[in-house]
């Protein structure tokens, strides 16, 4: 897909679930992005370091270990300090966490969206959102 050719996307996971990360890497490579496979089990701080060195255009994080909200908050805070707010961040997987007062982990998608993280829900919608970001960046550059 020419519209995503050369877009540098870091793909990583908050936990050991390699399959979800592999699925994202394969799908994003198939649509022409320049995938930077950062492996699994990464900290927010490590992801930000990777963004600085690679000058990535976007970050895609998959999570299945019930830390989505706190991980996302740390990631956005560190990322904004290091490179500003120009790099879109997407999270998917199981977006839940134990919140004070909850008996079971609850969905935290709204919290993530509030902190600026996009939660497209499917890989198809993720690709659509990447295209939109690409087109907006190209238009801004003109």
């Amino acid at each position: 897909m020419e519209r995503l050719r050369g877009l540098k996307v870091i793909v990583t996971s908050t936990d050991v679930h390699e399959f979800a990360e592999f699925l994202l890497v394969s799908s994003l490579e198939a649509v022409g992005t320049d995938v930077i496979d950062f492996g699994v089990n990464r900290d927010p701080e490590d992801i930000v370091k990777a963004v600085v060195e690679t000058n990535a255009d976007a970050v895609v994080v998959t999570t299945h270990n019930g830390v989505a909200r706190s991980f996302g908050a740390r990631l956005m805070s560190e990322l904004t300090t290091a490179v500003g707010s120009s790099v879109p961040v997407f999270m998917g997987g199981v977006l839940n966490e134990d919140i004070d007062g909850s008996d079971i982990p609850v969905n935290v998608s709204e919290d993530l969206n509030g902190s600026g993280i996009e939660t497209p829900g499917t890989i198809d919608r993720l690709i659509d959102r990447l295209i939109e970001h690409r087109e907006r960046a190209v238009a801004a550059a003109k």
Partner: protein
Amino acid sequence: VSVAVLADFGSTFTKVALVDEADGRLLARAEAPTTVGTDLMDGYAEALKAARARLGGGNENGTELAASSAGGGLRVAAIGLVADLTAAAARQAALNAGARVCSVLAGSLGSAERDELERERPEVVLFAGGTDGGQRTKVLANASALAQCGIDAFFVVACNDEVADEVSKILSCAGHAVEIAPNVMPALGQLEIDGARQAILRAFIEHVIRGKQLSANPRFEQIVKMPTPDAVLRATQLLAKGAGSRAGLGDVVVVDIGGATTDVHSDRLLKPVTPGIDEPLVPVPMTVRTVEGDLGLRAGAPSVVDVDAEWLTAESAYRNPEDLSRAAAEREQHPQWIPEAEDERRLDDLLAVSCTAHALNRHCGRMLLRVEAGGPPRMVRTGPDLREVRRLIGTGGILAHNDASVALLRRGLQRKAPRSLLPRDPDVSIDRSYVLAAAGLLSTRNPEAAVNLLHRELLETDE
């Protein structure tokens, strides 16, 4: 017999070995004090004359090769963008080139970093930053910041390949000598330090050695081929991998205890596969050199006492920490001093045990359990896993001239830090004939002869 003259200009002694260039037999060796105050070739001539006298004269037209750590060795500053990514990769490239890394700088560089470089006066600056096709803006900004630095250093540019030419132009327009090398970290998780290492070695031979003005004799610049630690690292690799008909030994570690520093060199053949254990962000190379600037027997003695006071007071005749500090200060003030009294010799031995223990524990990785808020515990390995190392070699004056040196190294090994990946039960050899640097030099001409030299002098004389 074609005789190779293999010399090591050390900070205190110049060692000369005469070796049969074809089969690596050590024919004679001698040493003389290094003559930094006058002309380095004076000490070399004296050591060479003594070695030739032991051989019975003649053989005056053989190959001459030398390594040098005289005049402070090779001082390198490592620059990167992120401390534990490109800056760490640059630091390891410099260490593996045999350098003393005087500064490691990361992030957005400005006047504070320029001041640090002007204070440390590196002879080579290894400039890294960005993966290939990655970060441009910050790398170029760092180059512009460094261009104004008032240092007379050679720059090796090993950054994002897309901006390497531009970085080189910025630095050379400001009057700096520059060579472009392959990126030390072309992609995340990929360490490619050999190209930068080679460029640093070229800078050492073509610029640094001349700039030190250690000798008025042009022969000096012609025979010096590498910094001494690089020669030792080459010998470590040769022992591990073998050459020609000589098989390698497998994983090897060398501990080099000096007056100011303790170096550890290791070479591993196989990377252990341990699923579920997180590795450092920058992969650990199979060949690693580390330098501990606070662990040494003379200039480094006070800092060894700082690091290990409790153990040293418990083990030595100096039960009072103030007396121990005074004894260390004496050693710092008199770097050539060789103790005669039993208590002082014993303290030197204990300092050597301290240097071995701490340098090895820092060189080897640890297996740690990391727990962070909101996440599950994770196993993390911080550096090389050397538990299966089969051979540990000790070198340096304290070990070469000491009957108990094998026991000293074993005692250092026993002081394993919790969860450290130290060698478990290696065979131990001592470099009594100072052949490690000589073999590293000879390997540039005849690797098989160099391995023969190492086997004969280190392994066939097992203690």
